[in-house]
Every structure is written in structure tokens, then in C-alpha cells.
């Protein structure tokens, strides 16, 4: 018997609010399946399950805010016998409330009290909705239980959401001209609807908490190098010349891949400082700092960057940036980064001295690629595109000698772009 708990999506998260269940008791779930949407300081996050089995009981109702690690659902592992009150019997006969209380497994002595059953007006837990439709519904403020699904198995599509929104708009009386009569529309009584994207005030608090902890706990040291980019950019230009826009690569992809390959050579900087010691990361999962419109920052991870070919990495990056800005990140993307990169982009400053995201032990920064005088290997002077690469690292876990090796390795890979 497993308990599915409110995940910790980074050092700065203390609690989350359940927005919606995407599974119901009796459903089979697989590893990595998105089972719930949780509202955090970083916006609405799609939470994945890391057990395989059958959902036995949902312990939280939408709208409940609970601390990290609070059990949210019970999941029966494959092959395990059903628990005493696994799936609620179809038409529940009216029984005294006391008899409904099932014995709880010993493993969950402090499980959250069973939530009140969601009001009957709430959408059924088994509703099929595509992620894009879900986001569109959040944007438009359309309650999903009011939408008629026309997709496979009655799944709700983006078009269904939009047509429901148009229907609602058509039904709504035209706004009266006088402010006195401008009565706000009746709020949805039961269905919590997540805000689109994120709340800038909450996001600021999350950044403040994580960065204060970083500066309080982590003795940072900083290194920086200037790296010639003419070979990497020439490679990019040649690659992109033959590709239609959707398949073109950005310099960011080369920076990501070069960093990932460098971390293979210096794995001591890829991981976490936990309980007074270094724990290597389980893979090279690189967090990518993304500035959000309206302020704020989120650094979701791309998994196994060292193993991704450039076109795949580009597709992953595009997808990630899109979802970071529209509010559809997954829990594993927020929790798994083993090192974070900040790249200031073409209009950014020339260099950056990063603040490490705890409990990671290092962060790599790239300034804008700028054209500067450059003395090449033969001693000749030329105008070249260059980038400032910087490293902030945790002095408890490493020293500058090791950090220098990482920067040298990044430089080396960027001089051989065809091997990236």
C-alpha cells in the first residue's frame, strides 16, 4: 500500500492546494502519469505519480491546502489485495457515518482527516480532458463540468472549452451601463478554478525564501571565463540554413548540451548537498531559469540533457518554456534539477554571478553573446562573438580547482560544436 503525498517541488515550497484530481478510486495508474493538478507559488503544476497500481482512496478534496508530504491518496500496488474499503460500492446505501470509517493502515497514522466529499456539483473525477483544454479552460474561467466533451470517449477538447465559453458569453446579459448595477457575476460555488499561470506576489515570496536560504547556508565561490563562440555560431548558422523555422536551433541549446557533457567529466558539481554531504545527481537533469512575463522566475529541468540529440533538446526546451509561461509544468520538472543554468539571452547583461538553488551544489551562468576583440590561437586580432561563462559553486562540496575544470570543459565542447 502506497501513499501518494503532496510533493515538494523545490526548497521553497511548504504547501500546495489541490486544484483537481485527474484520477478516481479504481483507476489504474502508471509511473509518471499525471494524477492531479496542484496550485503552488509557482502556478498550477501537474503532479505525477511514482507508483504503479490502483487508486484506492482519495484523501483530499479539491480546494484543500496542505503541507508538503501530506498524504493525498492511497494507491494499492499491482498484485496487492484490495484494501478493506477499496473502491466505494456503486450505490452507497445510507449507513451511519461511523461505519464508513475504515481502519487506516499503520503506515499512515497521521493521515489527513478524510475530506468532506466534494459537493455533488463538482465535476466527476473521471472526466477526460486534454492538457491543452484544461489550460484553455483555466484561461477562460470555464468550469470543466459545464463543458460537453466531443473527443474520444467524451474527452473535452480545446474546441469544446471555447465553444462552452462562447455559449456562456452569449447567455450572459449584456453589461448594464451604470456602475451601480454592475453586480459581479455569481461565483462558481464549488469548483476551484486555478489562476492562469502564477501569482506574482506568491512567486516573489518563493524566490525570496529560496534565495535567502541559499545566501544564508551556502558558502558560494565564483569563477568566470570568456569563451569564443564563432565556431558554435557558424555551426548553428549552417545547421539552420537548411531547416524550416520549426526545426531551427537556438544558441541556448548548444550552451545546455555543452554544460551537460562537461558535467559528465566533472560529476562532483552535478548533485545536491544534503545532511552535511554531497549526493550525486541520478542523471544530468539541467534546470533552465525562465523569466516569466509579469515578473518572477522558474527553473524547471530537462531530464538527461547529456543524452539528447540537439533537435530533441531544442524541442524539449521550446516545450518547457511554453509550459512554464502558460502554467503546465510537471512536478518532476520542478523537483529533479541536478544543476541549474541561467542564460541571460541576446539582450541580457554580459555576465552573471548566479545564486545557487538549494540543495544543488552549483549553478552555471551565461551572459549575452556579444562581439568583442579576440586574440585567436595564432596571435591575430579579430572581432569575434564571445560569451562570459560563470560558475557559482558550493565551497562545502568543491573547490575552485574543480570548478575551473568544469568551465574549461564547457569551453572545450563549444569549440567542437559538431560533437555536441
Amino acid at each position, binding site marked *: 500500500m502506497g501513499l501518494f503525498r503532496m510533493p515538494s517541488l523545490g526548497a521553497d515550497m511548504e504547501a500546495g492546494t489541490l486544484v483537481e484530481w485527474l484520477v478516481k478510486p479504481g483507476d489504474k495508474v502508471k509511473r509518471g502519469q499525471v494524477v492531479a493538478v496542484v496550485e503552488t507559488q509557482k502556478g498550477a503544476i501537474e503532479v505525477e505519480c511514482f507508483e504503479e497500481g490502483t487508486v484506492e482512496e482519495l484523501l483530499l478534496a479539491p480546494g484543500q491546502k496542505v503541507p508538503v508530504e501530506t498524504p493525498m491518496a492511497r494507491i494499492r500496488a499491482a498484485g496487492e489485495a484490495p484494501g478493506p474499503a477499496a473502491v466505494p460500492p456503486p450505490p452507497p446505501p445510507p449507513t451511519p457515518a461511523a461505519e464508513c470509517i475504515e481502519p487506516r493502515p499503520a503506515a499512515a497514522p497521521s493521515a489527513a482527516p478524510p475530506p468532506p466529499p466534494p459537493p455533488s456539483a463538482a465535476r466527476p473525477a473521471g472526466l477526460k480532458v486534454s492538457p491543452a483544454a484544461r489550460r484553455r479552460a483555466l484561461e477562460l474561467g470555464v468550469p470543466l463540468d459545464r463543458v460537453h466533451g466531443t473527443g474520444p470517449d467524451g474527452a473535452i477538447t480545446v474546441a469544446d472549452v471555447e465553444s462552452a465559453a462562447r455559449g456562456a458569453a452569449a447567455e450572459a446579459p449584456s453589461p448594464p451601463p451604470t456602475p451601480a448595477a454592475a453586480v459581479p457575476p455569481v461565483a462558481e460555488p464549488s469548483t476551484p478554478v486555478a489562476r492562469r499561470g502564477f501569482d506574482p506576489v506568491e512567486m516573489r515570496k518563493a524566490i525570496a525564501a529560496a534565495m535567502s536560504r541559499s545566501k544564508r547556508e551556502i558558502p558560494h565561490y565564483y569563477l568566470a571565463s570568456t569563451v569564443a563562440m564563432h565556431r558554435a555560431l557558424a555551426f548553428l*548558422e549552417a545547421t*539552420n*540554413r537548411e531547416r*524550416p*523555422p*520549426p526545426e*531551427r536551433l*537556438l*544558441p*541556448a541549446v548548444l550552451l545546455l548540451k555543452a554544460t551537460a557533457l562537461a558535467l559528465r567529466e566533472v560529476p562532483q558539481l552535478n548533485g545536491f548537498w544534503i545532511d552535511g554531504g554531497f549526493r550525486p545527481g541520478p542523471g544530468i537533469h539541467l534546470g533552465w531559469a525562465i*523569466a516569466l*512575463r*509579469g515578473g518572477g522566475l522558474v527553473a524547471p529541468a530537462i531530464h538527461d540533457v547529456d543524452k539528447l540529440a540537439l533537435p530533441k533538446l531544442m524541442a524539449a*526546451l*521550446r516545450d518547457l*518554456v511554453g509550459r512554464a509561461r502558460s502554467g503546465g509544468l510537471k512536478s518532476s520538472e520542478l523537483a529533479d534539477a541536478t544543476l541549474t543554468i541561467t542564460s541571460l*539571452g*541576446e*539582450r541580457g547583461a554580459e555576465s552573471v554571478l548566479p545564486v545557487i538553488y538549494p540543495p544543488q551544489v552549483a549553478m552555471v551562468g551565461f551572459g549575452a553573446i556579444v562581439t568583442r576583440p579576440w586574440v585567436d590561437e595564432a596571435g591575430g586580432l579579430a572581432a569575434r562573438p564571445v560569451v562570459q561563462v560563470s560558475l557559482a559553486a558550493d565551497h562545502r562540496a568543491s573547490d575552485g580547482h574543480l570548478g575551473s575544470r568544469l568551465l574549461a570543459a564547457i569551453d572545450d565542447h563549444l569549440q567542437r560544436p559538431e560533437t555536441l
Partner: protein
Amino acid sequence: MTRDELEAVVADVLAGIAPEADLATVGEGEDLREALDLDSMDFLNLVIGLHEKLGIDIPEADYPKLFSKGGLLTYLSAKTGG
């Protein structure tokens, strides 16, 4: 397509990239990237959107011609045979 029609297409593509960006507030000579706070990923998405909506090829070498609003509309006008 007329310049106004092209501007409407650009505004439509931008709405999917930067919902709060208002193309109408950008002057002809202004750099779209500065005025609307577009990073290189946003700009690539703009090029992809225009490529798909208008069915035109936009080589990377032409990007600098697209940075200002006026330059972009002139470029699209020429490419769409206007």
C-alpha cells in the same frame, strides 16, 4: 495582403506568444524585441508562426530585417507578393 491585414496576422501570432503584448503601441521604427520584451525563443516562435500562417520561408539570415515593426511588415508584404 494589405499592410493592415499583415499587421493583424502578426498581432494574432504574438497573442499566442506574449498575450499582453500590444502591437498597436509599437512605433514603425521601434525594435519589436525591445518594445514587447521578446527573447530569442519568443522571436523564433514569431517566425515559426508567420511561416505557418503565411506559408512563406523566412531564412535566418533575414532575421535582422524583421526586428523593427516597419521592417517586418515591409518584409512580409514583399514575401507575400503584396
